[in-house]
């Protein structure tokens, strides 16, 4: 009922763990799979280890979280070891490696060093709080995005390349179209929103050490849905929808809007990793009750009615 095959990845359910949430260690990713995730996206990594920003880096706010983790991650060598440990689960639950860099060469280098252990790469060109050059400055520019994606595709031909886009641009479909032109195999929409700012009301101090941070969680859902819906009308490659999914109803909205696969991040904070099983169960019930044969029947439904 929920099975699908997208970009060559066979999944039992469409719900992936989103990048940056519980995705640092093989253990935590396995734990999430045990809890019912259909697939995994690792926390973004690059060549070198990176401590990220100083705390506070992640704070729960009204409607979600604000974060400026700053792409903290062990370097590619350490990460490859974690990825190797995930081999046993890959037969049933695809593992997508989220990677970042400031040049095409960095992306390619990281990808080459890990391509044997992953089912796809997600190029994170959209982090709203990365240090200079490593984040959304790429994903804000269609030409730069095209360059990076094309270079990576030229070098990596046996693993699908997914591009993760930022909503914090005047028109996301421009960047989506550029990615497709560069032969991206799929898109992930969206990375966190903003960035935003929160200030302590007593002292006037910005709460995050980095002041600004990406916004994620239930409150960004309408923005994410718009991005998915609009992009679906402009490209032919599959879309992974992410942003504020907390219940099966949210998941349905993304599927209707055109996402073939989904990712869940922040909502794990409310409901724990068990959220994957809850949503898959509820989705199945919904499909049965509404007499759909397969989840495929409802992907993009909003565009057909």
């Amino acid at each position, binding site marked *: 009922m929920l099975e699908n095959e997208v970009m060559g990845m066979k999944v039992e359910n469409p719900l992936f763990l989103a990048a940056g949430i519980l995705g640092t260690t093989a*253990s935590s990713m396995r734990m999430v799979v045990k809890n019912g995730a259909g697939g995994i996206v690792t926390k973004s990594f690059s060549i070198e280890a990176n401590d990220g920003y100083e705390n506070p880096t992640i704070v729960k706010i009204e409607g979600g979280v604000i974060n400026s983790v700053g792409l903290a991650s062990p370097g590619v060598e350490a990460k490859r070891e974690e990825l190797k440990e995930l081999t046993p689960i890959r037969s049933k639950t695809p593992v997508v490696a989220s990677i970042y860099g400031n040049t095409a060469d960095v992306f390619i280098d990281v990808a080459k060093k890990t391509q044997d252990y992953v089912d796809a790469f997600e190029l994170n060109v959209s982090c709203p709080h990365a240090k200079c050059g490593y984040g959304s400055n790429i994903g804000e520019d269609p030409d730069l995005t095209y360059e990076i994606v094309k270079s990576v595709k030229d070098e990596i031909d046996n693993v699908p390349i997914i591009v993760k886009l930022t909503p914090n641009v005047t028109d996301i479909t421009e960047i989506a179209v550029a990615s497709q032109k560069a032969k991206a195999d799929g898109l992930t929409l969206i990375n966190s929103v903003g960035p935003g700012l929160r200030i302590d009301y007593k002292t006037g101090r910005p709460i995050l050490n980095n002041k600004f941070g990406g916004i994620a969680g239930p409150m960004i859902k309408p923005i994410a849905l718009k991005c998915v819906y609009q992009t679906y009308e402009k490209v032919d490659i599959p879309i992974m929808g992410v942003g504020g999914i907390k219940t099966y109803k949210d998941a349905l909205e993304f599927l209707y809007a055109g996402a073939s696969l989904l990712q869940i991040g922040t909502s794990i904070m409310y409901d724990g990793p068990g959220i994957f099983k809850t949503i898959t169960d509820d989705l199945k019930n919904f499909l049965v009750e509404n007499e759909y044969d397969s989840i495929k029947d409802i992907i993009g439904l909003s565009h057909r009615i």
Partner: protein
Amino acid sequence: MLSNVYDDEVPEVVTITETITETPTVKTFIFPWKITDDIKPGQFVMVWDFKNEKPMTISVIDKQKNQMGITVRKAGPFTDNLYENIDVGDQIAIRGPYGNGYDLKGYNKILAVGGGSGTASIASLSDFYDNVNLISAASCEDELVFTQRFKDKNEEVYICTDDGSCGFKGFSTQLAEELLKEDDEYDIIIGCGPEIMTYKLYELALKYDIDCQFALDRYMKCGIGICGQCCMDETGERVCVEGPVFNKQQLSHLTEFGKYRRDASGSIVKF
């Protein structure tokens, strides 16, 4: 704590109402906080000094005065700043409490072991339970914390210093083993301190076949279970949500327990 999706859980600024210099390197800070029934010994808060934010055990849970306290040991820039610069009338900011504390219902006689500033984790136990015996361990007499506080409560307190400057000379684990040998009424051993200590205590619990609960210390960023920074091998359990206090059964699956931890980047650092 996290159940309501829409509550802001940004740090709350509080003003320090009292400081207690416990030792030349350890200080306790008291501040007003609404103490509800779900705040338990062993839980922690995230403490923001407006420069950085780090996890700290709740060492004082005073329901009558609606006060909370944390106890800080100088160990680096953050804790140094608190120790040196924060005084009565100054502000810090707190979010939490987070995590699970000790769950000691149904136990008959509890042996609680605190090593160094880890003692903070068990400091408020005697306000909740009256069947706790305490071992307070430190490198030397000067570094012993809370001994007076424990004595005021009429708890059995065993002192233990590495150099023998006070109480038992040697490691807390040796003292603990002697107590366990002497008295088979202890049915659980709990505690917090350097992981080399807690791991040995865990081995003691195995050897003497009694229960145990230990608070673990891992690098934390979010404190709310999403960044993955504090996840333990092999189960992936989150120290900030499923911990920081883990029980024997959980500990038995934590393959990194006593062996290594991870730094801010997530890279492995051996003990």
